[in-house]
């Protein structure tokens, strides 16, 4: 038996709304009311009291249709969107003795440092994650430069190695992203995200919009990296197939609320919440 894995991330009551809110909000929005926008004050409750724990090396899937709050949740985890309430407790995996910190309590400077050093993100649209004017090598190098790498030869060697790992043609290291295909750009994003050996990798609909064969290759790559490097990941997707292939545990979101959480296989085989049942049946 393995010992109980230590957690890396403990998300507690994470909440985000757009608008000022009103006393009638609570009784008007959520899955039971089939809406996340309050009809009285028009406030959108994008994410309400999300809580979950993530163990080291675990892959957590977040599934839900568009507008369910999964992207807002991911942006809060990426520290690029503020939260109105809740905490994101983080325990440094390389230093189990260190006390957990609430990432939302960091000042902006410290938050930026944390994002540079410990987080990696792969966006659905490559132009959100890559600087199109820079070379592919430069995009990967940015993470290393932020970690104070100051030797061009060493940076290029590491960038080349990351490109090799992510099955990108190394000789194209100095080419600009617009000359790469969509599937390749997703792998450039993955190479970049892995450069700083992040404690947490966030994946936002990474295979949406790709051809099926290209999708399969990107998913294989993510699975291999997870297997080889034991990277902790949060994977957002509206595609149950993607979730099934990669995520050990899954949470299902609807109208800003987590309606079901558990082992992915269990959720797929025996969905409890009516919404999950609908998702599963429509996917099959």
């Amino acid at each position, binding site marked *: 038996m393995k010992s109980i894995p230590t957690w890396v991330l403990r998300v507690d009551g994470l909440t985000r709304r757009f608008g000022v809110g009103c006393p009638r909000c609570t009784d008007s929005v959520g899955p039971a009311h089939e809406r996340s926008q309050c009809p009285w004050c028009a406030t959108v409750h994008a994410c309400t009291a999300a809580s979950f724990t993530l163990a080291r090396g675990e892959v957590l899937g977040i599934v839900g249709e568009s507008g369910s709050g999964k992207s807002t949740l991911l942006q809060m985890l990426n520290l690029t969107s503020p939260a109105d309430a809740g905490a994101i407790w983080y325990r440094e995996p390389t230093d189990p003795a260190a006390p957990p910190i609430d990432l939302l309590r960091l000042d*902006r*400077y410290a*938050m*930026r440092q944390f994002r*540079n050093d410990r987080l990696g993100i792969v966006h659905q649209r490559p132009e959100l994650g890559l*600087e199109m004017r*820079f*070379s592919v*090598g*430069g*995009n990967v*190098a*940015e*993470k290393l*430069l*932020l970690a104070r790498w*100051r*030797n*061009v*030869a060493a*940076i290029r060697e590491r960038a080349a190695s990351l490109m090799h790992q992510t099955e990108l043609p190394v000789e194209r290291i*100095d080419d600009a992203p617009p000359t790469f295909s969509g599937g390749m750009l997703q792998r450039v994003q993955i190479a970049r995200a892995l450069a700083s050996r992040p404690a947490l990798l966030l994946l936002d609909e990474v295979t949406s919009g790709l051809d099926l064969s290209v999708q399969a290759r990107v998913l294989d790559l993510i699975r291999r990296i997870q297997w080889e490097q034991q990277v902790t990941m949060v994977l957002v997707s509206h595609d149950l197939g993607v979730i099934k292939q990669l995520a050990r545990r899954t949470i299902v979101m609807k109208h800003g609320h987590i309606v079901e959480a558990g082992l992915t296989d269990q959720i797929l085989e025996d969905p409890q919440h009516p919404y999950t049942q609908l998702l599963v049946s429509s996917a099959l």
Partner: protein
Amino acid sequence: MHELHYTYGLIDEDSKREVRRALLKAVALPGHQVPFASRDLPIARGWGTGGLQITLALIAPEDVLKVIDQGDDESVNAVNLRRLIAQTTGVSLTAVTADATVIQTRHRIPEERLRADQILVLQVPMVDPLRWVEPNLERATVMHGEADYGRMWVYMYESVVRAGDLRIATQYPVIVADRYLMDTTPIPRWDVPKLHQADALFLFGAGREKRIYAVPPHTSVAPLEFEDVPFRVEYTPGQRCARCGCGDSFLTSHAVSDADGATRWVTTCSDTSFCAARQAVP
């Protein structure tokens, strides 16, 4: 209509006080850009109005002023600015670097090491090195606040990859006191090391961009560079000044006509006062 009369130092006292407050803040936060209102002056924006406002706000009747442009006291713009400052303050003027207490300059730092009792005022055209990677001020301000200089470093990396070297001739970006990224103004790289751990105070004024910043004495100023592609100043071995013969100052090229009418190119010191002093030594 009567002749118009102006106050000492042209600008009203309240405005000068505002400039001095901005200067104090700038000295307290080395390399940080401090906004100030920036008065309209009778010289055009982009022609030294930022440096001029600092000089006018600082200069006292007992000060001795030197103004240079391209290192040259006799360059047209230097002459013009000196004329304006002299007319409105009556301070003593000099071309000798060692005699000056306040030196206003564009594009050069004098060759001689400045002393603790001297202030160098630099005219600034562009203010922020981040403009090369982020032209939006609102976003660039956040980037400075978070010391988010990753993209700037990639810009340097790309320069090495594409040009084989740090492809920046002037306005070389530096990190001041291990914190803020700063534009050194269009001085050549030759002058950048003079900012590091200096004895004198360096004040930077951008009139059109409405920002003031400073490098106080004995402050670390580190050019962005790589271990294997280090920052290097301009230097061509064997090249010497055609007038004073020295090989250790920043040289610029000039066309001269020989007696027979033929044109040839020679190099001379850009710092004319330094060159004159060298020539005076037998």
